[in-house]
């Protein structure tokens, strides 16, 4: 009836049993508004095409119509799970173009703040992944611990999700009274639960069976497709922008980049766990080493702030991978061109389509969430 090749798989378009399925935006396994069009034959996927655009707002065009300061509340909404890395990258780019120096204490506060955001974002990713695999208990724990971090953010900045705390020239305000003690207590609470997480999820035989060997991306493929972050570090390559181009206070404390060897979903989630633990340790070290001082250098004229013509490209490490911003100014009070290089862009568009080939339908959600894609970052 249909042509079968030697290993039982057919080419797309040749099988009579080929179906086109939409792993569409309204789906219990889809976190974020994203869609994948799958061509399946039986249980096997022959071709996958990512279908982004459900969250496209034209950010970069809107940012050209608002002044430099008015863009700060805009910029955090690009990555909803971890808005702080977006604020950081925009701040770094603006400071580079305008030549603003940041005081030393602000560097430390920024690092602590970004590591807190990283822990929160990894807990969100753990919720999504554990839910997808069916480990509901671990998902509830992860969301609860993320809520504890959000309480800290609310105390520090006033908002649970969107903070607008990093400002060009430093941070908006210093740590309030008693904040450090609350931060340390929360981190001890979360860190003390790591053995529970390990027993229930990370060292669970079921997780091993579900995720080992699934969605493998080799190091060569990852480099060719421009993948960074966990996708690359799970193949054994120690590539982290915090070590490659250190910013804020990351070169002032000793820390290590966690890596794993195999490049499959199992390794990627283990890298996430190791990064979370490393972030917690890093916050403690930064708190110990933090100097006193002011936290903010004023920008020259907040009512009419024009930045000299020029261009800049800055990079930082968000919880998903390498985040970059290309900023062009032509001397006006509004940016001339803004282009974000988000980590989920290659992961969600090229790596996903490659990793889903010859996968089974049951593993689509598994692979997609283990690649750590955040849909609004792709569309902007």
């Amino acid at each position, binding site marked *: 009836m249909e042509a079968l090749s030697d290993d039982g798989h057919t080419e797309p378009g040749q099988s009579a049993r080929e179906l086109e399925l939409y792993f569409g935006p309204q789906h219990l396994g889809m976190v974020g508004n994203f869609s994948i069009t799958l061509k399946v034959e039986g249980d096997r996927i022959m071709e996958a095409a990512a279908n982004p*655009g459900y969250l496209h707002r*034209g950010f970069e065009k809107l940012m050209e119509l608002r002044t430099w300061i008015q863009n700060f509340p805009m910029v955090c909404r690009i990555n909803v799970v971890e808005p702080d890395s977006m604020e950081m990258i925009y701040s770094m780019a603006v400071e580079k173009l305008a030549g603003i120096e940041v005081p030393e204490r602000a560097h430390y506060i920024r690092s602590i703040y970004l590591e807190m955001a990283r822990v929160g974002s990894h807990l969100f990713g753990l919720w999504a992944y554990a839910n997808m695999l069916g480990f509901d208990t671990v998902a509830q724990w992860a969301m609860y611990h993320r809520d504890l971090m959000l309480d800290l953010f609310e105390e520090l900045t006033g908002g649970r999700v969107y903070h607008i705390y990093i400002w060009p020239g430093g941070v908006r305000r210093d740590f309030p009274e008693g904040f450090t003690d609350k931060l340390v207590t929360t981190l001890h609470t979360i860190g003390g639960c790591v053995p529970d997480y390990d027993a229930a999820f990370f060292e669970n035989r079921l997780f091993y069976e579900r995720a080992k060997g699934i969605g493998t991306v080799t190091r060569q493929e990852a*480099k060719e*497709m421009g993948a960074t972050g966990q996708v690359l570090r799970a193949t054994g390559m120690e590539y982290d922008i915090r070590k490659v181009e250190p910013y804020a206070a990351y070169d002032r404390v000793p820390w290590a980049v966690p890596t794993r060897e195999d490049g499959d979903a199992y390794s990627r989630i283990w890298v996430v766990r190791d990064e979370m633990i490393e972030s917690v340790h890093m916050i403690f070290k930064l708190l110990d080493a933090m100097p006193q001082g002011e936290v903010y250098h004023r920008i020259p004229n907040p009512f009419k702030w024009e930045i000299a013509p020029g261009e800049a490209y800055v990079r930082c490490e968000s919880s998903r991978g390498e985040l970059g911003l290309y900023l062009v100014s032509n001397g006006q009070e509004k940016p001339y*061109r803004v282009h974000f290089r988000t980590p989920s862009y290659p992961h969600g*568009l*090229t790596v996903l389509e490659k990793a889903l080939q010859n996968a089974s339908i049951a593993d689509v959600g598994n692979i997609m969430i283990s690649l750590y894609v955040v849909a609004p970052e792709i*569309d902007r």
Partner: protein
Amino acid sequence: MNTALRKKLQSMFDDLKMTTSEGAEAIIAVPKEALLAVLSFLKSQGYEHLGLVSCVDWIEQEAFELVYILSAYLQEDHEHGDRERGNIIVKTRIPRKSPQFITVIPVFQNAEPYERELHELFGIHFEGHPRLTPLFLERDYHIPPFRKDFDTREYVKEVFDSIPPVEKPKD
């Protein structure tokens, strides 16, 4: 970028405008015929990571400026014993009327979605690209939306605000 690489680039390609400053990225402006050769040369020198393919609309100068940003995975340049290889920005200009250019996929495979997005949002046609279908947008726009002459507020007034609200039922 270290001095040996800079000298090599200057000797291999004429018509190159390079600006490097301490602590900042190196910006190389090349004519469009030389772009693919410059990118392959830099890739062979270890700059294997294409971070971004972007475009800036210089409407007064009637040109689109295509920007390719490269960096290295390994920060050590073993041949010259140099560390800290930062970002390199390679730029080229194409005319704004009926813009088209070649694709850099033969050199950097991951340029595919970036060029697709630029095709959709700026209207630039890339020769040799395997899949220039719409990525984000579903409607047709009279001018590609990211160009400077597309007034988004006018468009919103025309399309969205002109739709009447649904009246409450009378009973």
